[in-house]
């Protein structure tokens, strides 16, 4: 068994589609958006795991669910296991023993009632995509950074908390801190805001963070800077990370392993270099083919995008393989078509650590 810090097992997150009163009267079935539909993966200690995929594939929902932002009633099945620090583990063990998964030494995040979730929160943090929305416009930088300390009752008194706030600002290279501490978010640039957000996530010393496209809303010129800070801090504090992105080039730069998601499921998973050099799933292939080519010589080559159609609605998932309606390989390989129509493929290990969910690679 791998030594994980976070493990997601067969996670399904469904959101009900609002029915009109008349629909209810007519007895129409309740419909669900299958945002996450059977996702399993794990993150090792100190590792960065990427969730990649196009918009609407459920990668952000997966991230939010790990961090327990999804309301429990929408988590239809599966579990999120997390290995917290010893004290927190013991705290949960004494208060909610049923949330403990003893054989793994982990906590089932969704079995901890919100009353006891606070110590766990300190261990797992999130960096949000939108640095303009994730900071309360009415609070100054010092208030924003002090907030987690106040909530968790950390630091003796105002002075000590301020000390920690200043340290956190130095960590994210907002120096000199006194220049930033009294500012409001609207007085900061996007990059500076995102650094404040990173400082806020890290001020509690978490072991695990979810970074939800932390640079996608920033100017290209400051992305590298933010990514560098993030990487440096990750190494320094031995943070495990789930990094959510739609940009495979970025994923290759940031991650150790990657899971490619399509319509609520991971279709291919493995070490990031493996996946990008040797994509197996027809969807991953299309994604990799879409990475912009840095070499000007190659740009003139007409590249074929081996995908068709549009993403189907997450309410009505196609039967069998969910990628089938868009799959070019399906049209070309008549011998698998029957299986593709009938059954959803499971992830199969084709090389060590490299797993793919496609009937093309099924031995049986």
């Amino acid at each position: 068994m791998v030594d994980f810090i976070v493990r997601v097992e067969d996670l399904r997150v469904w959101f009900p589609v609002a029915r009109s009163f008349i629909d209810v009267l007519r007895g129409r079935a309740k419909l669900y958006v299958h945002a996450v539909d059977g996702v399993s993966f794990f993150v090792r200690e100190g590792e960065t795991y990427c969730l990649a995929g196009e918009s609407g594939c459920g990668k952000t929902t997966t991230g939010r669910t790990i961090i327990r932002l999804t309301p429990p009633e929408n988590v239809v099945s599966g579990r999120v296991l997390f290995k917290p620090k010893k004290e927190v583990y013991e705290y949960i063990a004494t208060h909610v023993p049923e949330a403990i998964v003893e054989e793994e030494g982990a906590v089932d995040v969704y079995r901890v009632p919100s009353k006891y979730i606070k110590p766990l929160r300190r261990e797992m943090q999130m960096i949000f995509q939108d640095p303009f929305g994730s900071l309360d416009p009415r609070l100054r930088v010092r208030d924003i950074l002090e907030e987690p300390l106040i909530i968790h009752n950390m630091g003796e008194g105002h002075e000590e908390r301020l000390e920690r706030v200043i340290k956190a600002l130095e960590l994210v290279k907002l120096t000199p801190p006194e220049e930033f501490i009294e500012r409001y978010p609207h007085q900061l640039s996007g990059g500076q805001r995102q650094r404040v957000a990173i400082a806020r996530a890290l001020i509690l010393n978490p072991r695990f963070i979810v970074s939800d496209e932390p640079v996608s809303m920033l100017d290209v010129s400051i992305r590298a800077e933010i990514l560098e800070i993030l990487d440096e801090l990750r190494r320094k504090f031995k943070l495990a990370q789930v990094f959510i992105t739609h940009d495979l080039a970025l994923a290759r730069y940031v991650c150790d392993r990657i899971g490619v998601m399509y319509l609520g499921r991971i279709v291919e998973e493995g070490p990031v270099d493996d996946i990008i050099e040797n994509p197996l799933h027809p969807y991953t292939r299309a994604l990799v083919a879409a990475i912009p080519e840095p070499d000007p010589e190659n740009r003139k080559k007409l590249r074929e995008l081996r995908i068709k159609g549009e993403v189907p609605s997450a309410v009505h998932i196609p039967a069998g393989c969910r990628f089938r309606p868009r799959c070019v390989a399906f049209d070309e390989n008549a011998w698998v078509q029957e299986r593709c129509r009938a059954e959803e493929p499971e992830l199969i290990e084709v090389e060590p650590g490299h797993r793919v969910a496609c009937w093309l690679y099924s031995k049986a």
Partner: protein
Amino acid sequence: MARAVTARRPSLKERFRGVSEILTEVRGQLMGKIGLGLIVFFVVVSIFALLTIPWDFYIEWNDRKLWEEYPEVVPPVWVSHFGVPVAQHVSKIMSEPTETMLYKRPKDYNGITLFGYTTIYRLRYRLKDPAFPQGILIMFEDVAINNFTYRGKLIRPDSISVGVHVLLHRPDGKVLLINEPTPRSLTEIASAKTVRFDDAYVANQILAMYPGTNMTKDYATSNAVKLAFGVYEDGVIKPLRGTYEVELIVTYLARGVSLEALKNVIEAGEIGVREVKMVIEGSAYGLMGTDSYGRDIYRALLYSFPVELVIGFIAAVAAVVIGLMMGVISGYYGGWVDEIIQRVIDIMGAIPALPILILVGAALQERGASPWMMLFVIIAFLIIFGWGGLAIIVRSMTLSIKSEPYVDAAKTLGASNIYIIFKHIIPQIVPYAMASLVFSVPAAVLTEAGLSVLGIRHNLPTWGTVLADARDYVYAGGSYGVWWWILPPGILMGLMSVAFVFLGLALETIVEPRLRRR
């Protein structure tokens, strides 16, 4: 390094940053300045009223007897500065007679017969302007009615016969006896208390003054006071200017008691009239005139200031606080809580509040509920039917704030729902709630006044009540010319509304920054 930053608690000013920001914004605008100035005026006057008028003034206000001595439906005295002739209002309390006499046998005095121990109280009155006073009133404020012994005999106050004569000496030398002098016992005097101007009795004397004219008895009776203070010429009465003197003559006589002995007990204060109030009702009174019961409108208006502010503030603050909390709870928690709150608001919105309030008010009046009870019910109604609209708007604001990423961020940090509501959601809504509060205050005041006019009287003297009294007076056949009765309460209500509306308009730029001109 960066250790130079001093750690300090946020100062008071910083904690109330929102409020001081709002004040700065308000002061920066003409409307805001006017509004704030007016509100300061209302508050200062309210404090003055609280200091100068007893809180239970409403009891005095509703006691008709206490206002008898004041002229009815007269304008304020300052109309004289605008050239309106005014007969002064004079009221004097006398505890010592101006003169005492002892008449052992009947004596003629200005056409009346005096006999016994006689006390005379005199009041001079100068009529400067060509105007008529409204009447003459004598009140026995303090009459001692003890028994006393004379030569071993017990003398009871009801065996003392008292004669009361009130003479009016006119500047032209003529003298009128303004009451019918029936001798009565001291006990009767003590319980009757007042001596009034007897129109019919005076009319006879007037008729005798103008023997050659065609003046009828009816005419003389209905214009007796005017004729007493005027001269009749060619069918018109002209005020007679000059110095008048009102003379109250009280004679005491007791069978079987020597006059000297009677004089001694009366002078010792053991028996008899100890204090009288002599009133000449003018043709103008006070700062704001009087109403049809002679009540001082100025005092009612002044008493009203704090009452109106309290009505407005309690009703508005309570409605806004409830609306804010309900809206936030409804929007933040959602689900069945939201559903219940929203349906309650819908139901409240569908209930015709005003007709129900009128019914409840009428029922309470019927049962003789106290003024405070009535006021409480009115305020409660204003609150109950006042929070819904705000709650709906706050709910939608909460829904949008709730989905801001910083709320998610706070959740990830472990913030409780209460913490998020108070730290992240309410601060965003407060400016809007403030503006809404400012508009609700005059609305509450106007509703309260409107109810008074509709007949739901809580009997506290408020602007609405004064206005409602004026309406009753006009409906009962009075003239619309009672401007001092109608305009001031109306203007005050208008000013209060303007004050809060201006403040609200100034605040609006905070709520809606796009309206800002700077």
